[in-house]
């Protein structure tokens, strides 16, 4: 299973996490997450996924984008990630990930996004 295939399971992973949904209840935003070369477009409404689209969409606006290499996501989603791969900022510091756009909603809800983007660790397929 590719990292993008893992991330495609995000809707089920999030709907199973009542605590994360509760913590995101003040958050509504459109954002983009790139898993290697594959973009995903997320519409978050009160912490839940109102829309989730995989693949390129022409001229679709987004507030911010988080992107990382396939290798970075693969390491990040290990059930027990290794040092230097275990946090989004560890990834950006090593040059394997980046944040772009209006980062205010990301920083206003930083723990939510860190936890959201770590959910694939819970997949049975997690390495």
């Amino acid at each position, binding site marked *: 299973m590719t990292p993008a295939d893992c991330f495609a399971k995000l809707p089920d992973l999030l709907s199973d996490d009542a605590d994360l949904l509760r913590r995101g209840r003040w958050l509504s935003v459109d954002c983009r997450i790139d898993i290697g070369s594959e973009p995903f477009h997320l519409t978050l409404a009160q912490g839940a996924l109102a829309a989730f689209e995989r693949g390129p969409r022409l001229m679709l606006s987004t507030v911010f984008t988080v992107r990382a290499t396939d290798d970075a996501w693969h390491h990040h989603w290990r059930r027990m990630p290794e*040092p230097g791969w275990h946090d989004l900022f560890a990834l950006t510091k090593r040059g394997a990930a980046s944040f772009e756009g209006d*980062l205010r909603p990301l*920083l206003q809800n930083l723990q939510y996004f860190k936890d959201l983007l770590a959910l694939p660790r819970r997949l049975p397929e997690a390495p």
Partner: protein
Amino acid sequence: MAPVLDPMVGRYVRLDIDGTPHRLYFEEAGSGIPLVCLHTAGADGRQFRHLLADPEITSRFRVIAFDMPWHGKSTPPDGWEKTEYRLTTASYTATIRAFCQALELDRPVVMGCSIGGRIVLNLAIAHAAEFRALVALEAADFQQPWYDTAWLHRPDVHGGEVCAALISGLIAPQSPPVSRHETLWMYMQGGPGIFKGDLYFYRVDGDLREKVKSIDTDVCPLYLLTGEYDFSCTAEDTLRTAAQIPGAQVQVMKELGHFPMSENPARFREYILPVLEKIAAA
């Protein structure tokens, strides 16, 4: 039923730091060699509560953890509302020395973490003869920044929550969830702009490259310990620093991050007890 009490007691001490009156809160437990503990940026002395409650340590050490000015229960100086807090190498060093003098500590051991570890290196550079031993946790002469501190203090982002969320990644994934969240809670409680003000020392004013080469460990032994999951002060940063200091004793701690004493007290104990043993035996 008798009350269940933790062994540490808390008090306030009045002292002048660079001519300014301060009222600092500290907690202590035990007797013997004074061991002064310095908390991380934006936090307070509660990070050391497990050391303060460890009979194996307090039977030989008088463990003392104080809240820096502007932190925890220490009262900010009069007129604080008209100033922007900024920690510097000089003000941090003056605070530690003033506290040790106010409590009349005889050649204490100082153990500091993160900014506390960095300032320990400065104590080794500039005031080694005043201390019995120095322990620098998560410390290096310099570290590469990994985020813009402007996000830490602005009206449209909750300061406590963003500080905690940023540093959450510095905690090792193996650390117990209860200890992880207690560590984060302390970050959520910092005063506005205080974490950012501490990082002025860390990022701008406290660059000790080149200066660490002058440390003489014959005057005062120096121990450096860094968690392998700390990507702010990496193991490589600490090893590079130690390599420039003849006689410095260095260790990389497995399955620990940037807050070893609070994020996983049981694991940290395995590393710090032998260090304290050596210090007590010297």
